[in-house]
């Protein structure tokens, strides 16, 4: 089929979206209109995005894509750029097409200076075949969704394909053993910039390979091409993070929770600097960075009758471990909600790679979700006390809220993705919760 004019593509795509809505095939960002566009005009995505003056930036990796993309977008907007980005959950090619369809004018033009796209590792490979990103930010390669991707080394090879397709600059986590390996960085046509952690944080951040060992990362061979990364998270005190960006230093009081997000912020700073050049001085970026708030479901705090409830999304061992570490500073009545839908990962093995000893002293009020009993078993063998096993998410939530009302202590739920969606829906009865996309 011959390529069509963008105006026609947009008209057809929007009609498809209306039809999809009429038929109730998903709301808003349905992939169906994206599919239609892909079929009738395969060049639409590339043609529209290639026209952007500052090009396309891709964010990928196992953990932290959503929050990091949000940081990059807000930093760029604070510098006066018009930014196109894809909503959470549409981090695949068709989802990006569908999101574009919403944003372009009737002639198919996108009123933006730059596109910042969060892409799932597997989908990123397809995306870069269609659109060559100007810059890419690669966060980490961790054990996650092995039931989908098979092996970590395979996941690394997916990100290598993204790096290879990038035309100008690849910004990567210099402390990630797979991303900083010579076989990853060698032969890339784009230049490579690293971000990472300073000496004093070595013990706090463990690589995935060290999960069991409690040993600090062996960074003797780390850094990219033998250099220390030029963007670093130097130290953390409470919510204050100290960053170095190309020799310039600043302390930033972060609204974002979690120390992993501070490292993500270092990656975002490095990327924005690489894209905008020297006009993006750290002193310029710091105020905007301090304002960035958590993305939906990523450590957000919900007020329930005056008592804070934190929803901590956990997807893989390293992420769960980091969430437990971040939380150790502030005690809370704790519930753990584990589902095993496709989006959560069907394999429960990962729960055995998380060290739960941090919960031994305080114990857990309830474990819940489809795999509540798997979680209960995990905690039994870690000798962490559990008050009740309640597979029903709504019932477990009510148990937690009752306890919260009684003792006025902060509450926290560690939850997998679909458990979080269900809990948010339940929470709407008790608190003001942002609508789910």
């Amino acid at each position, binding site marked *: 089929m011959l390529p069509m004019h963008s105006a026609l593509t947009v008209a057809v795509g929007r009609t498809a979206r209306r039809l999809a809505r009429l038929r109730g095939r998903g709301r808003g960002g349905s992939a169906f209109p994206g599919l239609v566009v892909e079929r009738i005009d395969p060049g639409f995505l590339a043609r529209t995005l290639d026209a952007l003056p500052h090009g396309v930036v891709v964010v990928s990796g196992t953990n932290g894509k959503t929050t990091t993309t949000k940081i990059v977008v807000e930093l760029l907007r604070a510098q006066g750029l018009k930014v196109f980005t894809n909503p959470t959950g549409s981090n695949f090619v068709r989802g990006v097409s569908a999101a574009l369809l919403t944003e372009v004018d009737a002639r198919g033009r996108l009123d933006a200076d730059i596109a910042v796209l969060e892409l799932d590792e597997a989908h990123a490979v397809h995306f870069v075949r269609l659109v060559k990103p100007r810059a890419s930010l690669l966060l980490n390669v961790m*054990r996650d969704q*092995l*039931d989908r991707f*098979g*092996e*970590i*080394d395979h996941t690394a090879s997916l990100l290598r394909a993204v790096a290879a397709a990038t035309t100008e600059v690849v910004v990567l986590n210099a402390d990630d053993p797979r991303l900083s390996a010579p076989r990853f960085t060698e032969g890339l046509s784009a230049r490579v910039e690293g971000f990472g952690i300073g000496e004093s944080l070595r013990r706090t951040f463990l690589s995935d*390979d060290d999960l*069991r*060992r409690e040993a600090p990362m062996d960074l003797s061979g780390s850094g990219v091409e033998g250099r220390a990364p030029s963007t670093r998270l130097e130290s953390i005190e409470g919510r204050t993070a100290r960053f170095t960006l190309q020799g310039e230093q600043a302390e930033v009081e972060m609204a974002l929770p979690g120390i992993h997000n501070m490292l993500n912020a270092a990656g975002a700073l490095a990327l924005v600097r690489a894209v905008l050049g020297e006009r993006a001085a750290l002193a310029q970026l710091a105020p905007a960075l301090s304002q960035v708030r958590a993305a939906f479901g990523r450590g957000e705090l919900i007020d329930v009758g005056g008592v804070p409830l934190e929803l901590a999304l956990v997807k893989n061992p390293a992420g769960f471990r980091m969430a437990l570490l971040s939380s150790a500073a502030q005690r809370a009545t704790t519930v753990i909600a584990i589902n*095993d839908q496709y989006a959560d990962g*069907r*394999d*429960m*093995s*990962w*729960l*055995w*790679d998380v060290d739960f000893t941090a919960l031994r002293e305080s114990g857990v009020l309830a474990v819940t979700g*489809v*795999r509540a*009993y*798997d979680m*209960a*078993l*995990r905690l*039994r*063998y*870690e*000798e962490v006390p559990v008050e009740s*096993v309640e*597979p029903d998410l709504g019932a477990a939530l009510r148990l937690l809220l009752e306890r919260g009302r009684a003792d006025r202590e902060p509450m926290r739920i560690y939850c997998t993705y679909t458990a979080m969606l269900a809990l948010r829906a339940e929470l709407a009865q008790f608190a003001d919760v942002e609508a789910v996309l």
Partner: protein
Amino acid sequence: MSTENGQARGPALRILQLYPEQMNIYGDWGNTLTLQRRAQWAGFEVELLEHEIGGQMPSDVDLVVGGGGQDSGQVAIAPDLRRHGAQLREWAEADVPMLMICGSYQLFGHVFVPAAQDAGSEPLQGISILDVETRGSAQRLIGNLTVRTEQFGEVVGYENHSGLTSLGPDATALGRVAPFGEEDSTAGGNNGADGTEGAISRNVIGTYLHGALLPKNPVLADWLLGKAVLHRTGEDRYRAPEIDESITREARRVAMSRPR
């Protein structure tokens, strides 16, 4: 001196985990933890030992555990494993119980032959404790799996492997893949074709099941510990710990009811 339950104090059980750095990717550490805790709850002291590449193999062990790893991990450990092959075979012949999961299971067989598309990869020789051999394939067997065994009843776990294993004449399958809903019952297991899963020879068990395997299959854990106690003391005096297993039963029931 020994009493019925919980009081028996004797020499510690020496449990050896092989290559925890390279071969612990799907929560297989949970197997070691389960063995340690159940032994302690049953009144036995435990000494956890580890062997890594280039290290000296501990002596005088009562139970050996190995986990799954990346392909690259398997390539890394194979020469070291072969160096200690004679010692491991000697233990196996002395009825030391062993549990080998996934990648370790494959290397306890004769050989792992990489898939044709992995050009340049050499066959990996194993240590032939189990009469099995494995060929790499383009397809991966992934999903929840229940295995029916004569010795241990239903064994439940999660498989994720691309190597296809076939049993030789001296190998006995651990069990047979249970029918899975509407799906083909031969879709998983050793090779996705003959309906077998795992292998057992003397007290050595090889299997593709992660999960981790032992927490949801305490019968298997207690069998391994029973053999370990027999090896240590010469007496059959391990009794399963008296704990409420209702959580275990529910976790098993749910796992068996989930989509593959």
